[in-house]
């Protein structure tokens, strides 16, 4: 099950428990040996809580892939389930496919790229990471976002950025509706430069999209009960 090829270790998930896989990954991470996971078959909790390792995953993964990780580089060649990269501290997670709900939930740092669509609540409670989705994001994305950046090339579902505190969201397509305390802000030259720079790595030109910028209106910062009706 454990076959070493030059500079990359292969782990076949088929006959291992998730705990065994993650224990192997931790051992390999202590020596920073790049690893490839075969036959993930949509399994949950792969590569959770791992530091300093490059992992490539050949196939779809389930919930929480790469969650709680630090200084990692994960590439998934397939779709992923709920909460990919939840609470990521630093590093990169790239999904060559679609993501289900809660992508990059509470991620503190690093970058999570979804090269497809993401489901509802993408970037929920984002705390400093960058989330890039080249397709669409679902209902209530960036809910309670606190810091960081979310770039969506496609459309955003209803209730985008509801109760956002801080951070910036760029949407290249249509926004179904904004949530409470979110507002549109004119795009500056610096914003376009930033987007060109961020998307260049994905061979995407920001100019091909009609990017709009969403930030916090900061009205809820001073919420008073008498203003309840406004919400």
């Amino acid at each position, binding site marked *: 099950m454990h076959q070493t090829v030059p500079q990359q270790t292969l782990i076949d998930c088929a006959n291992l428990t998730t705990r065994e896989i993650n224990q192997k990954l931790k051992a390999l991470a202590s020596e920073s040996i790049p690893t490839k996971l075969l036959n993930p078959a949509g399994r949950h909790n792969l590569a959770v809580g791992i530091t300093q390792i490059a992992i490539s995953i050949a196939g779809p993964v389930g919930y929480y892939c790469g969650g709680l990780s630090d200084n990692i580089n994960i590439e998934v060649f397939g*779709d992923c389930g709920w909460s990919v990269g939840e609470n990521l501290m630093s590093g990169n997670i790239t999904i060559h496919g679609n993501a*289900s*709900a809660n992508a990059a939930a509470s991620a503190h740092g690093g970058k999570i790229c979804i090269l497809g669509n993401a489901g*509802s*609540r993408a970037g929920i409670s984002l705390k400093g990471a960058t989330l890039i989705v080249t397709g669409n994001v*679902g*209902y*209530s994305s960036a809910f309670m976002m606190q810091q960081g950046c979310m770039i969506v090339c496609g459309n955003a579902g209803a209730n985008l950025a509801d109760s956002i505190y801080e951070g910036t969201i760029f949407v290249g397509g249509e926004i179904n509706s904004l949530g409470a305390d979110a507002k549109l802000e004119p795009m500056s030259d610096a914003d376009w430069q930033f987007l060109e720079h961020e998307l260049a790595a994905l061979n995407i030109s920001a100019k091909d999209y009609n990017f709009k910028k969403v930030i916090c209106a900061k009205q809820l910062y001073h919420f008073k009960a008498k203003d309840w009706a406004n919400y």
Partner: protein
Amino acid sequence: MCGIAGIIYRKSELYKNLGIDLLQLIQPLETRGPDSCGVGIYSNSVPHNIKLLLFAAEQAAWEEVKSWLHSQARVIKFDVIGSGRRIILDTSNKTLDLAEFKQHLATQFPQIHLMSIGQLLEIYKEVGTAENLFQRYQLKGFAGSHGIGHTRMATESVVDTYHSHPFTSAPDLCLVHNGQISNYYKLRFSLEKKGIAFETDNDSEAIAHYIRYQLLQGFSLEQALQNLLNDIDGTYTFLVATPDKIALVRDKFAAKPAAIYETPEMIAIASEYRCFLNLPHYNPNAKISEPDAGEIKIWSTTNKPSPHLELV
């Protein structure tokens, strides 16, 4: 965290796979809920007759049940199946008052539970694993046009066969649900005031009764489900099946998961994407999508619903 799954075929050549496909689809969901497993399958149509599935948790006086049934209608079949009986009643010459029939059954044989009634629907459910259920009732070879399944993690009521899913509230109508109904008591109270009798304390049963009540008011299935989105609070993704349809409803907050797998041959719905990878004829080119918040989706079979049986 329960698991729900459903299959509806677009080609009748595939009907023979229903049992095994449904088992493969539901099995990965056991990690979401290991308490019980159940399926509602649409198969073996008995036009102009009525099919009943009766179950008893303990010993029951089946001979007495049989002779009572004879007094109601001619009993064509009375097969032993697991801890119950699969019965076909000949109603071609005589219309049976189903409401009265159900009431009499409940009072005369309180230890017997009516699992399902209809011309197509058969409900099998039990505490334990999917493999167990499918073996006990020999469901792997079961053929049919569509079916839904459930694995349960009990949150709101006890773990026993009767509180397991699917729930039925009318002939040939059944439902599986993942989530909780937060206005359950209000909803139940309002349905009870309309004369609806609840059999369990499970909140999912209330959804089944609500849908039946809406259909009885003359609403289409789609309109009934639209009304439901406004009247039922909570987190829910559920599948409701009728003789020729499966409908999927996701709550307005998209709080509970669901994924849809679509090929020219079939549609499969499951709580988790990985279930599709388990399908015996998994097609990597299938269209896979997730329903939006507050979305209703309805798929139809090629079956024509029989006009004989009406909602009661």
